[in-house]
């Protein structure tokens, strides 16, 4: 060919037929559209807020709130600020989501395993549970538990009395509250010692197994230590804990710790609803481990419970964890339905009462959404890390 040193290049297409040009133009248009929409919304909001005399900024967070909140994990009274109400709401959201995740995981795993039980009755009961609970809207389930079930509990005067120390009524569950007296440090010390000893015992057991092959029952002995040492401390000090036992006084129980019924209903509904999804995830996770794996492990002489722990669970977990995480996320988001029954979560306290008292809708809604966004991003991050750690090595 007539090669005069300049390399032959494919001819340039007409710009309007060049996919690269098209892509660039298309993307610029898209970016401009999005930017324009964003900018217009922003402009509208600013000008609307101005023309309607709505004040802007986060200064309101330092003003006094002046309203009461029925349940707070951190110290709160009505003389504190709106910033504080944000934290109270956030803490309550975290509490109900955390407990919900814990309980839903337990119930979900139990039900998922029950679905695979060799017992026909158990299998069918689990199936019925799953099919019923995941096909009914969560909000309805919350109402059901709150109004139709917990609502029928007796009043405080007729409360269900558990040994004169705990009471169940439509004001919630009241439990004795421990008050630690001077010697109580030993109980804490006992607990700490139990944990530390168990930790080192586990390490020691692993090393000993590596060295001699002997298997040491860490779990039962650890449990005994963790429970026993604090008890021992308690006895030695002659019972340095006094209990603030709730008693009916005036209108309600005084003293003790109260778990309000809103929390109970929300927790029940969130747990049972989410657990029905988790059960299916667990079931399919376990089923995804092929039968050959169990057979191979059995053929090696491993006893069934070790097969479960060493072979099935580690493999099932890879399948289970990603959808499980999104269930956790859903549960956290769904906890915002608290607003329907008045549990003081973030949406209820902050996007409800605080917004209403201050009128700073844009700031408050933005803060609330930012909280959920960060939770979601954080969980995704953890999940990606986990996924990378357990990804199967393939060719």
């Amino acid at each position, binding site marked *: 060919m007539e090669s005069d040193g300049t390399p032959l290049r494919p001819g340039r297409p007409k710009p309007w037929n060049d996919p690269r040009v098209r892509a660039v133009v298309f993307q610029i248009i898209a970016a401009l559209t999005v930017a324009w929409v964003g900018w217009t919304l922003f402009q509208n909001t600013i000008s609307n807020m101005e023309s309607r005399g709505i004040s802007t900024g986060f200064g309101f967070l330092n003003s006094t709130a002046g309203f009461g909140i029925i349940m707070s994990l951190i110290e709160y009274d009505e003389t504190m600020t709106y910033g504080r109400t944000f934290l109270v709401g956030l803490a309550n959201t975290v509490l109900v989501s955390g407990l919900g995740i814990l309980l839903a995981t337990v119930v979900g795993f139990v039900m998922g395993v029950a679905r695979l039980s060799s017992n026909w009755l158990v299998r069918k009961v689990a199936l019925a549970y799953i099919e019923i609970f995941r096909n009914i809207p969560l909000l309805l389930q919350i109402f059901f538990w709150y109004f139709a079930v917990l609502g029928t509990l007796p009043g405080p005067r007729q409360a269900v009395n558990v040994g004169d120390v705990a009471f169940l009524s439509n004001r919630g569950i009241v439990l004795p509250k421990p008050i630690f007296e001077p010697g109580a440090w030993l109980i804490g010390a006992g607990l700490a010692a139990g944990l530390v000893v168990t930790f080192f015992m586990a390490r020691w057991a692993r090393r000993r197994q590596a060295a001699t092959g002997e298997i040491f029952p860490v779990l039962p002995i650890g449990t005994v230590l963790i429970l026993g040492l604090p008890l021992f401390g308690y006895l030695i000090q002659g019972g340095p804990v006094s209990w603030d036992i709730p008693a009916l006084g005036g*209108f*309600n129980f005084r003293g003790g710790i109260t778990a309000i019924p809103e929390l109970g209903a929300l927790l029940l509904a969130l747990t049972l609803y989410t657990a029905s999804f988790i059960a299916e995830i667990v079931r399919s996770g376990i089923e995804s481990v092929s039968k050959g794996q169990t057979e191979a492990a059995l053929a090696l002489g491993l006893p069934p419970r070790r097969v479960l722990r060493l072979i099935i669970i580690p493999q099932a977990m890879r399948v289970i964890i990603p959808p499980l995480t999104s269930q956790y996320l859903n549960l956290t988001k769904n906890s915002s339905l608290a607003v329907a029954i008045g549990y003081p979560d973030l949406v209820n306290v902050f996007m409800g009462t605080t917004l209403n008292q*201050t009128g700073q809708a844009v700031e408050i809604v933005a803060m609330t959404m930012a909280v959920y966004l960060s939770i979601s991003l954080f969980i995704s991050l953890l999940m990606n890390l986990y996924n990378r750690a357990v990804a199967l090595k393939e060719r």
Partner: protein
Amino acid sequence: ATLDDVRDAGQLRCGVSTGLPGFSQPDSDGNWTGIDVDTCRAVAAAVLGDAEAVEFVPLTAAERFTALQSGEIDMLSRNTTWTTTRDASLGLNFTGTNYYDGQGFLIDEGLGVDSAEQLDGAAVCVQAGTTTELNLADYFRANDMEFEAVVVDSSEASAQAFDNNRCDVLTSDTSQLAALRTQLSDPDGAVILPEVISKEPLGPVVRQGDDEWFNVVKWVLFGQINAEEYGISSANVDEMLESDNPNVARILGTEGNMGEILGLDDDFMVDVLTQIGNYGEMFERNVGPNTPIGLSRGVNELWTEGGILYAPPFR
């Protein structure tokens, strides 16, 4: 401007309560009744000539200001207390008072409580996002008592919670308490305690910065009060049109240009009065002694009758 928007839409969007007997309550066909609802209708009658040209937007207490601020509704008539903060920093304007109220407590008779001072430790049901919520905290703090606030999002829900014994006391404006009591399964078993712990002037609200609309809403209510003062009612509007009394003539637009300067027709009050009636009629019809709510006029009587209703003159 809102006035033009309303005229263009041919409809007034008015924020009301999701359900409070006597103030705003839908029946099972979705027809709304109540004094707050009539206040909306009166404005619609004045602006559009048709009291039915209203779209009622039911709002919870927590949503109401946002809805008004954002322009979701043209006016809010939802037993809303007039306070400094709301008037100043929320960007809202109260146009007057259609019911003077005060906060009280409703309690189960069986508990044997006869004063609010005995409420130490009680669980109190209260509606979210209300001044009630704030007054409650103030009152208990002032009296050095403890309480547990069971916060619910609507007044019906608060009545329901009280009925279910979720709380010992229900607190709200006394008029609302009277209304809510009718919803209880045993209305006679509950009593309203004598203490009134706050001033609660309730009235319609509009957005700040639209003075024309502000004036319209304000003067429709003043017009109804003046009408009662001068004895004009839905029954006798037609006769009154002939009246020589210059005050009456100015109200009904047969003399002067009161409507025109407000941006309305001069006879706007005729529409209001024929379709809704004067303030007294509105009161009697919705919350008066002959209704299930059974409230007496009390301070909501005209100033000439010993009450505090005092509307500026049409002039």
